[in-house]
């Protein structure tokens, strides 16, 4: 059967679509915000006329390379292509800065492959028993898992747990925007804005918090990403870096697989959890955040195995593990393949599909390897022209999620919040975790109560839920309890480490920024609290609680800040050594102007103007490059929008007839 399946896959037409899928996936992947789900959904109609096996191979190829392409931008520029690749930047980007971009991309390609391969082995070997267990994971268990994942914040914020918690509360509060958790029929915190009734899209938050923040930093620094003159490492060295770490692979693939098998968790949680678990147990943990290969390996392997792990419940139960899984399942059904228990007994087709999935992983490895060299050159492009280019792609990317300019403005706002957070030394990733986990915790809490007919006993009478909750409690209290048992090395990170907030970002510069930010946060929570009282008891319960906790934390941080107010600066500014290319306020002024111009004169023209203007302002004065570049980028935006059927405004107000 396997051999016959392989023969099907090796048909020339299938190999052709495998390559084509890889190519298309790579293009979607390197575009910010255009993640695997979007890529697969967009390609779906083109498969209607294909043979089932061809269609699935094509779509899986798009999916796999798209996920890899997302990592490429994350590693080389610290611009995550999707939220799942945020952790790839934590060690991948420092590696790039050290001139090891080739190796980092090699790790990404090979790590994804290894993770995918392990996931694939499980898919064909023990899919059935795993799924049987996964079925038993219901609302109370998901609630417990969500609480446990919130415990990750203490790891993610590297010692500054209280700051991490505060920012997670903000993330949670943002996640409450949109439909209520009980029936979804009333909308919360929309303040009359129809776009908020559906909630704040995660992709828009992610682009703002990470991509816009990073672009602002790039423009401030000027020059280019890598200061070394030549990059000599090879992509192949990344393979060795992966193979040398079998325990990392083991830990990360198990995390990824489990997150993948459980529906509704998704690849972002897989890669973040994989990274943080590795950070706790790896012998290299001291280097994490400064370019530790183990960190990148863990993030990539987890992501890779989760992508395939997602397919396990899709094939065995007909229950997709993620949005992308749902789209692939839709494709399977359209092509007459019925996912579910009887799938494996339906002739050669399942074997062809499984072999095809393995082939896409192998093909991804080859593609990834061969193009990585060329991608890696991007780090030598001057930031003055690279940054505006990324900004225009982010603007387009944030637009595509819901086809509205409102989301572009939202992204810029999140960029501003992210920028201030990094400046003030607060961990942005905690906010992302809050946004991701809010619905998981809240919705499943109310589901559990209803399943248990309004009795809280359901959280302790279900053994799995109880077990997870107990582990969480132990895990959270361990740093405080463990010094009682052992002497010497403490688990609590030192003050220096704590200073080094979120992935080696520059630590706090101004007390004034932190002060202003905290005041804004207090007002924000006040607003949430006030608004919560307008909702029914259940609907308002979590927002009330979170805003009270958040406000207490914010006021606490304000109080410990006050004694330092007189100093003006918390620590010495290193800025005299650093030439500022483009101050952040200019960058944000540029974003606002760009947004306004899109409204007035449409996307392509505004983009051309923005690229030219920003490049010029950032000190790039070669007209012969700048002029064709800006026209080219404007034209490319137009063509991309046309090819992907994105209804951008081409003419702005002039086009509105």
């Amino acid at each position, binding site marked *: 059967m396997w051999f016959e399946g392989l023969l099907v896959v090796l048909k020339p037409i299938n190999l052709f679509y495998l390559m084509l899928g890889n190519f298309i996936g790579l293009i979607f992947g390197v575009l910010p915000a255009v993640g695997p789900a979007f890529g697969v959904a967009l390609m779906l109609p083109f498969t209607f006329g294909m043979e089932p096996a061809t269609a699935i191979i094509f779509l899986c190829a798009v999916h796999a390379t798209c996920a890899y392409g997302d990592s490429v931008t994350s590693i080389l520029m610290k611009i995550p292509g999707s939220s799942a690749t945020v952790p790839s930047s934590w060690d991948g980007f420092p590696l790039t800065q050290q001139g090891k971009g080739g190796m980092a991309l090699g790790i990404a390609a090979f790590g994804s492959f290894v993770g995918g391969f392990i996931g694939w082995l499980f898919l064909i070997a023990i899919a059935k028993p795993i799924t049987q267990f996964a079925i038993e994971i219901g609302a109370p268990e998901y609630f417990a898992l969500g609480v446990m994942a919130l415990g990750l914040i203490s790891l993610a914020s590297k010692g500054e747990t209280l700051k991490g918690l505060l920012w997670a509360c903000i993330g949670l509060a943002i996640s409450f925007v949109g439909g209520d958790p009980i029936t979804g029929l009333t909308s919360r915190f929309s303040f009359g804005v129809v776009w908020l009734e*559906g909630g704040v899209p995660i992709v828009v938050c992610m682009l703002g918090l990470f991509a816009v923040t990073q672009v602002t930093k790039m423009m401030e620094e000027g020059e280019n990403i890598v200061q070394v003159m030549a990059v000599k490492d090879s992509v192949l060295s990344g393979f060795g870096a992966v193979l040398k770490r079998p325990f990392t692979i083991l830990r990360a693939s198990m995390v990824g697989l489990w997150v993948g098998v459980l529906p509704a968790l998704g690849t972002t949680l897989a890669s973040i959890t994989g990274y943080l678990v590795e950070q706790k147990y790896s012998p290299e943990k001291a280097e994490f955040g400064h370019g530790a290969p183990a960190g990148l390996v863990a993030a990539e392997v987890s992501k890779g195995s989760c992508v395939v792990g997602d397919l396990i419940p899709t094939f065995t139960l007909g229950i997709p593990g993620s949005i992308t899984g749902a789209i692939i399942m839709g494709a399977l059904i359209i092509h007459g393949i019925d996912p579910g228990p009887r799938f494996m007994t339906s002739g050669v087709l399942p074997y062809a599909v499984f072999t095809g999935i393995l082939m896409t992983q192998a093909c991804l490895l080859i593609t990834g390897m061969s193009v990585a060299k060329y991608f890696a050159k991007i780090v030598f492009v001057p930031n003055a022209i690279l940054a505006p280019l990324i900004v225009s792609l982010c603007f387009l990317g944030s637009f595509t999620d819901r*086809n509205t300019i409102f989301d572009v403005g939202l992204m810029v706002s999140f960029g501003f919040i992210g920028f201030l957070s990094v400046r003030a030394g607060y961990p942005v990733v905690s906010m992302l975790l809050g946004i991701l986990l809010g619905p998981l915790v809240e919705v499943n809490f109310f589901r559990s109560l209803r*399943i248990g007919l309004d009795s809280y006993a359901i959280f302790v009478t279900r053994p799995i839920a109880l077990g997870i909750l107990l582990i969480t409690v132990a895990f959270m209290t361990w740093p405080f309890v463990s010094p009682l048992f052992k002497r010497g090395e403490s688990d609590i990170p030192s003050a220096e480490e704590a200073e080094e907030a979120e992935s080696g970002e520059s630590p706090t510069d101004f007390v004034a920024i932190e002060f202003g930010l905290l005041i804004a946060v207090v007002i924000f929570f006040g607003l949430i609290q006030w608004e919560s009282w307008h909702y029914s008891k259940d609907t308002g319960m979590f927002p009330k609680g979170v805003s009270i906790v958040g406000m207490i934390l914010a006021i606490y941080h304000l109080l410990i800040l006050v004694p330092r107010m007189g100093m003006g600066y918390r620590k010495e500014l290193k800025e005299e050594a650093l030439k500022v290319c483009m101050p952040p306020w200019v960058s944000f002024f540029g974003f606002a102007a760009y947004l306004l111009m899109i409204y007035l004169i449409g996307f392509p023209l505004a983009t051309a103007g923005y690229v030219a203007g920003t490049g010029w302002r950032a000190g790039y004065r070669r007209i012969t490059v700048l002029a064709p570049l800006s026209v080219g980028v404007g034209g490319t935006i137009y063509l991309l929008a046309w090819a992907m059927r994105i209804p951008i405004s081409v003419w702005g107000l002039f086009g509105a007839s």
Partner: protein
Amino acid sequence: MKSSTKKSSLLVWHVALLAVTVLFTNMTCLSEAASYPEQDITFVVPFRPGGGLDTQARLLAPFIKKYLPKQVNVVIENQPTAGGKVGALKVFGAKPDGYTIGILAPNSVALLNAKGEIGKTKLADLAYLCRTTYAPYMLTLSARTQFKNISEMRGQRVRFGGTTSVVFQAAMIAQQLGAKMVFVTYDGFPDASMAAMRGDVDATFFNWDSGIKHVEASEGKLKTIFIASEKRLPELPNLPTAKEAGLALDRDVISVMAAHNVVLAPAGLSPEVKGSLEKAVQKAINDPELGIQMQKANYFVKPLTPKETKDYVLGIASLYLKYKGMIDEVK
């Protein structure tokens, strides 16, 4: 001096770009006076790419193109958020030139109407083009629940699992049964059916076309009880109707007990444009080739004429208004 020449050359570039783009876009919108259609038609889908409504629209679009007087593209535009509200408002508020049509679920349109969230639009004025699919809801019971049939559910608290789009329908069923509903909301039918397999909920209520696969895949952990239609379905001859199972439902109540979609255009179309659209969409939905493609995708095309579609949607809307009190209650 030098920098000023650079600046002026930049200006020249921009003017050139302007000229090129003007030429480019003018080609598509020269004049609207000539006969319809002259440009691409936007087909609004109020959900993300990849969902059921989106798949239906993507299958349907090339067939509409095929039957239009001129071969313009029918381009899908996804307008997700707020449970389809944004997409619906986009269609209702579009310029009535025949270049914007949409695919919407009558139930969600009726709900928006009952909640007074569609502004000045009057449902009776919209141009209804066709109904695409129709799949009645069916009730399934978990094998792990204490209830073996619907008569045991009378007077009891029954946990229903389903999505936001069936809350209202489940409440009506519970009311007819004389049971007290505890509704547990899930993101999709797969999640809800898994909850029923675990025994976390007693019953699920969802459209049979997607539901039947979960029942078959559950290996006996889910049992079908009845289908909320007037007659048995030819596809499921063994599944009794609600009436046969001992639950008499009014005719108008039955009309909302289904997942169904309609294609429509904004109010105020000129008769010529409306005629062309109706003709093209009707021919498209009745094309046997589309029927085969839809069935492969597990959708069952049950077309209605424009007139029938209009009456159908208005009937559902008036029922929602009648039960407005119940909607507010389940909220």
